């Protein structure tokens, strides 16, 4: 008897798979989607570890010689033989006694003795690092990991902020319409009429530097696209029969807006959220590159790229390669995951 009941329950729970469960099932069937999900999850685990200090906690330590090349290239060739200029000087110059005219001459000996008393222990610096070092000799790998933490953190939170603003205003404008809709359209038009990068500069100039500022700037300047899409969806859904039916049973405006309609447009919001994560990571890179991004004692992919341009002139390519490769990997994986998510969540495909 119990087995029958259990079987019944199991069957019914399987049949009542909600939209999220079926969407997850569709996602697991998507090979590209799953691979990109694995990459993104890997990055997230990595930045979590970095955030709590398990990974790349000592990224500021100068562990290698300045501009240490990557290990697989080998140490930089040492200057062989004697310095050509030194040899010229040594050959022809006669020692000149300056003690008559140098007032400090009597003190040289004393200083030399005092200096001998102080022990200087210069830590041994590695000739090479796994993927090279920057101009201060900091490990590039640790820097990339720490930079990923900040860049992704900024990207995700700025996207959440922008999506929140865009969804709220879009829902209000699309659902209420009329004067409220007109007013919000006006706000939208003002925001979009200012060139995006100028708007970001304006915010940056007012708010100063720091991670939270970057998040605020990007969120406040980047909500317009989401607003537009959510508004359109709400306008479409507002007149749907299920919303009419909710009105007929006496559901309030708020309930219709957020309990009835929002879950039905959530796929749009989610996809926009993930698209904006990618967009904002790139935007943070530009901001930091231009010196409007994170503080100098922090590192992000943007500041690394900014440093890399000077190094590249000297032929030190490793910082640039490490940053672009990790950024490209994350951004591509995230974009592919977004595509897979959209396919899995789109109710039209059901």
């Amino acid at each position, binding site marked *: 008897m119990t087995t029958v009941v259990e079987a*019944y329950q199991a069957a*019914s*729970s399987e*049949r*009542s798979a*909600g*939209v999220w469960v079926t969407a997850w099932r569709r996602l697991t*069937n998507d090979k590209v989607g799953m691979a990109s999900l694995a990459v993104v999850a890997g990055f997230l685990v990595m930045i979590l570890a970095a955030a709590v200090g398990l990974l790349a906690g000592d990224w500021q330590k100068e562990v290698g010689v300045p501009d240490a090349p990557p290990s697989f290239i080998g140490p930089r060739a040492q200057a062989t033989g004697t310095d050509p200029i030194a040899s010229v000087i040594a050959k022809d110059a006669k020692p000149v006694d300056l003690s008559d005219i140098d007032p400090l001459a009597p003190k040289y000996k004393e200083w030399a003795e005092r200096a001998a008393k102080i022990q200087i222990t210069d830590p041994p610096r590695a000739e090479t690092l796994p993927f090279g070092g920057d101009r201060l000799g900091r490990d590039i790998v640790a820097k990339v990991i720490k930079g990923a933490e900040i860049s992704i953190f900024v990207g995700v939170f700025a996207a959440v902020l922008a999506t929140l603003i865009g969804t709220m205003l879009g829902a209000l404008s699309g659902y209420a319409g009329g004067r409220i809709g007109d007013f919000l359209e006006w706000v939208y038009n003002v925001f979009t009429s200012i060139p995006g990068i100028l708007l970001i500069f304006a915010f940056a100039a007012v708010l100063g530097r720091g991670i939270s500022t970057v998040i605020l700037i990007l969120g406040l300047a980047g909500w317009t696209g989401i607003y537009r899409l959510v508004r359109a969806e709400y306008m479409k859904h507002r007149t*749907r*029969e*299920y919303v*009419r*039916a*909710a*009105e*007929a*049973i*006496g*559901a309030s405006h708020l*309930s219709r807006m957020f309990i*009835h309609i929002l*879950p*039905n447009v959530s796929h749009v919001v989610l996809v926009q959220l993930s698209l904006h994560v990618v967009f904002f990571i790139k935007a943070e890179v530009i901001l930091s590159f231009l010196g409007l991004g994170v503080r100098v004692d922090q590192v992000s992919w943007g500041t690394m790229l900014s440093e890399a341009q000077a190094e590249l002139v000297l032929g030190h390519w490793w910082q640039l390669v490490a940053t672009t490769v990790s950024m490209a990997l994350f951004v591509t994986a995230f974009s592919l995951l977004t595509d897979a998510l959209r396919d899995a969540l789109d*109710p039209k495909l*059901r």
Partner: protein
Amino acid sequence: MTNLVSVRDLKVSFRLGKHRIAEAVRGVSFDLPENATVALVGESGSGKSVSAMSIVRLLPENAIVGPESRVEFGGRNLLAEPIDSLRTIRGKDISVVFQEPMSSLNPVFTVGWQIAEVLQLHMGLSRKQVGDRVVELLTEVGIPEPKSRVDAYPHELSGGQQQRVMIAMAIACEPKLLIADEPTTALDVTVQRQILELIKRLQDRHRMSVLFISHDLGLVGEIADHVVVMRDGVVREKGRVAEIFEAPKDAYTKALLLCRPRLDVKPKRLPVIDDFMQGKPESQIVVTEPRIARAAAAAPLIEAKGLRKEYRLKTGLFARKTVEAVKDASFTLYPGRTLGVVGESGSGKTTVGMLLMRLVEATAGQVLYQGKDLLTLSDTEMMAYRRKIQIIFQNPYASLNPRFTVGQILTEPMKIHGIGDNDADRFERAAALSRRVGLAADSVYKYPHEFSGGQRQRIAIARCLTMKPDVVICDESVSALDVSVQATVLNLLLDLQDEFGMTYIFISHDLAVVKYMADDMLVMSEGAIVERGESDAIYADPQHEYTRKLLSAIPRGYAPRAQRAA
């Protein structure tokens, strides 16, 4: 009589996902004789459209046609032809008219251009000849002022005219076979009649064959020579129209014929297909006892006076145009009775229902609910009355929130109106109600997409019942359902009316259904009520010209040849 097309052992399945395959058509064979009309009849999902579209291979990408299937046309197997040679047949020898004329015509080209395209593709005519032929075709399908209509865009034409243009395109190259896939389902009854007559006339004149796909046996009986009845991808019965209608052999055919409400009798219950399929004797299924309407009580429940709804359209910078959706509608609703509202699309019948519930705000007028004017109440005062008037919408696929479980859908109105003691009690009531409307016990845990159309409509009915309403507005509530499902839902509505003593406002374009359900009736045309009274009296002796036109357009079903000629 020789056969134009022979379909032999047609099997079509659809690939759904990686490992799932759904069989749509399972070994269907039928013949299309020359110069005859063959009707493919069946409910949704019966495979009738798929079978017809297989003839010209207009199937979705994921369709798999069985290797043994054959469609013979002029000594060739169309299923084995390369797609290039099939293109010369499509539109020239075999052409298709679809259900939705608005979405079948390209909105950015003029109708003349679209007809000309077909002619240029297949006939190789000169520009001048094409132009003349287009006008000739538009004249033939009965478009008024064809010379000026050549340059009209689809949206400038009415639905019936659009379908005429589709037919003009289809017959442009004098096809041997015209496939008409539910060509009149999206149209009003009076327009439907005109289109049917047009197809009939064209068939006679051009001596072509017509494959007519429909779910409506009444319609088919009027125009077809042969009938093929399909269900679940197999042919249940086929034969000459007289054989099918006078002596149906298959239980399913019998059921289809009997479960449609008829205009001449009004039995207590409608026969249901399941009873036929279980092989019960006909005498047990068909109830002959007539349904007796509840006597009108002295006090009306709702009295609507001078209801008016205007929409203001902006036609220019300062110009405004007022469109009256409902003009001065007054009517009375008596408790326990059913008020039928009939009219064609755009007649304002749905708006009347919306005005009563204040889902649309009226421009003028009063709705007196037991003497209290609902239209002047504030939102909070209205809440108490909200639950007393409820509505069941037309499309059960759109009226249920797809992200809610049935349990959530049913408990939400109870939460809003404070019915039930706590969540557990409300859930218990929801489960009981879903059983009452005939759903399985575990339905409350499921999502709407797991149910069929008829079951979803039952959920919508149960949602209304949670609030114990006095008045239920059924806005085309059974129009989107199959004939067999329609009967079960109508029976359920009647049972519930008896059980809870509810009053119905039954809005529909389907005059047979309204005739069956309604005690009193309103006939609406262009926003105005043109006739009102007891429904039996109106059907027996219509006074207004529009009502007469409407009633004469209802498909009468099969009538023996002799009678037809008369």
